[in-house]
């Protein structure tokens, strides 16, 4: 084995593809690396280290772990331009999201995301601050908006949904 040379092997490749397919990115096998997605991806154009084409090739060659600590997958804006342009029906956006799910399963996301998840579970809002209440009252509105914040039973419903979703496996709550 030479320094810096990647040894391709089928075991890693199979495992990587199976993981991503299971998490919703079944198009990953169809990609022929034409690069159309990369050429229009706002994430790639903005200079993030990761882009759909690169991520797909990493998965296709069994390098699932390679970019796990790279937070740029979270920069995907879900604009779906890649899905529209892809000539092989790969749906790169879904591969990126499948990879995010994989990252989440491995707790490879920023701590600020943990706070949002906890807010969602407790208040029914991912972004929630007490400061809004005063501002709302100044303009004559009730302190809480007519959302889950005002309806504890709706929060209960959200909690039930979350409790039945894979996010519970992370043990955040």
């Amino acid at each position, binding site marked *: 084995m030479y320094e810096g*040379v990647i*040894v*391709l092997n089928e075991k890693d490749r199979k495992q990587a593809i199976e993981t991503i397919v299971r998490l919703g990115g079944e198009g990953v*096998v*169809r990609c022929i*690396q034409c690069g159309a997605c990369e050429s229009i991806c706002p994430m790639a154009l903005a200079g993030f280290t990761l882009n759909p084409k690169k991520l797909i090739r990493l998965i*296709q060659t069994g390098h699932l772990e390679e970019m796990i600590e790279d937070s740029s997958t979270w920069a995907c804006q879900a604009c779906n331009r890649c899905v529209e342009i892809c000539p092989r029906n790969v749906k790169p956006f879904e591969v990126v999201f499948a990879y995010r799910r994989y990252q989440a399963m491995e707790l490879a996301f920023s701590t600020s995301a943990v706070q949002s998840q906890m807010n969602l579970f407790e208040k029914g809002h991912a972004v929630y601050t007490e400061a809004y209440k005063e501002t709302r009252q100044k303009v004559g509105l009730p302190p809480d908006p007519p959302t889950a914040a005002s309806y504890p039973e709706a929060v209960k419903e959200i909690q039930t949904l979350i409790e039945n979703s894979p996010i519970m496996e992370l043990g955040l709550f």
Partner: protein
Amino acid sequence: MVQVSTNPNIELLTYSEVEHIDGFVGNFKVKVRKKQTWVDWKKCTGCGECMEKCPVKVPNEFNAGLDHRPAVYIQFPQAVPKKAVIDIDNCINCAGRKFGTEPKISKRTGKPILAPCERACPAGAINRSLALDPEGEVVELDVGTIVVATGFKVMEKDWFKEYAPHHPDVMTALQFERLLSATGPTGGKLVRPSTNEKPKVISFISCVGSRDHRYHTYCSRVCCMYMIKQAKLIKDKYPDIDIYMHFMDVRTPGKDFDEYYTSAIEKGINIVRGKPGGIEVLPDGRLRVMAYDAGLGKDVEVQADMVILATAIEVPDDAKKLAQTLHLTIDGSGFFKELHPKLKPVETAVEGIYLAGCCQGPKDIPDTVAQAKGAAAAAAVPLARGKVVIEPTISEVDQEKCSGCGLCVAVCPYQAITMELVNDRPRAKISVTACKGCGVCTSTCPSEAIILHGFTDKQIEAQVEALTMAV
């Protein structure tokens, strides 16, 4: 092929070579030399008994050298006609009896002591007493039109020192095709030649000798598809074998071809874009394919049990000789040249000779069949019409001026000029059907005895005058 051999209107001359050709469209005289076989084909039934008795072992051409054949042999089980021949260069002259000599008479039985092949033949078709006839049997044929279809050969792996050609597990795709074949050397069982065990990882390398300025600049056109076919065959039969395919580009033009490629990807065949630069033999006998992955933008390696090289398609070795015999032109890549790449794709510079298949350029089976049908139809036209249309702008000899030097005969690229005796003196004569009006003879003739109709000095001078008048 069997239907061809049994058709009463088709005479099949196999194991034969075209020696000489004379004449022109509609009136070709072809000399064909039949090679000496030492087997009477009228008696031979193709049973193969002689092959089992012959003690000689030489590399089997049909299995691309993967196994051996005897000196008396039938080329392959489906050969048409299924007749044996003795390869006299490799015959070891059993019991010291050279071919062309009568057998010794046994003192004990009083019967001749025959060679094992002669003894084995139940039909009594083999006769090694026949002397070598260097001329062979020459057949003269009168034919109207000719279709040339000499086929191709693939490059040997030995050219590519970077790919460890000495290693038995590195093989050309044609050898691999034989290895996979049910009639091949292993009966269709996929094994590594070095260990006789089933391989776990197989790598394919494309464009070996094709699209390579060191060897052939052209694309061999069929490699991508046959490699994908071989990969799919293996994957269908042995899903546990890992397959890597290294492509410079994947070229799958043709009906349903790209769908085939897509289905191979979906089957789990690894496509790696980038050409490997070398193969190293690992201490355990496996092969390290040193490759590049354009998708990752990084060097990669595959540790493979077998490596298949898709070597380039080439013209057969004797195609050049045949081109000289038939007065055909060949292009820069060595293939026979068609008259026009778009509008006369099966015609040649010689009226009445047509091309079909890989002798004109690399092509796959559908393209070959289409071209062959085109060539057959084109070859039938002058025969059905019974006459051909010729151009008026051809050369003619003024035999009054001709000195009979014969320079024109030597320069004519179409062999259209012959010498004839006029009043006991040699004079040139141009065949109106063979002449293409190129004008080489006209400019060569020291006596200015050859006129190219439409381009006489007077006509050209008049044209120059007309063009310069306005100035």
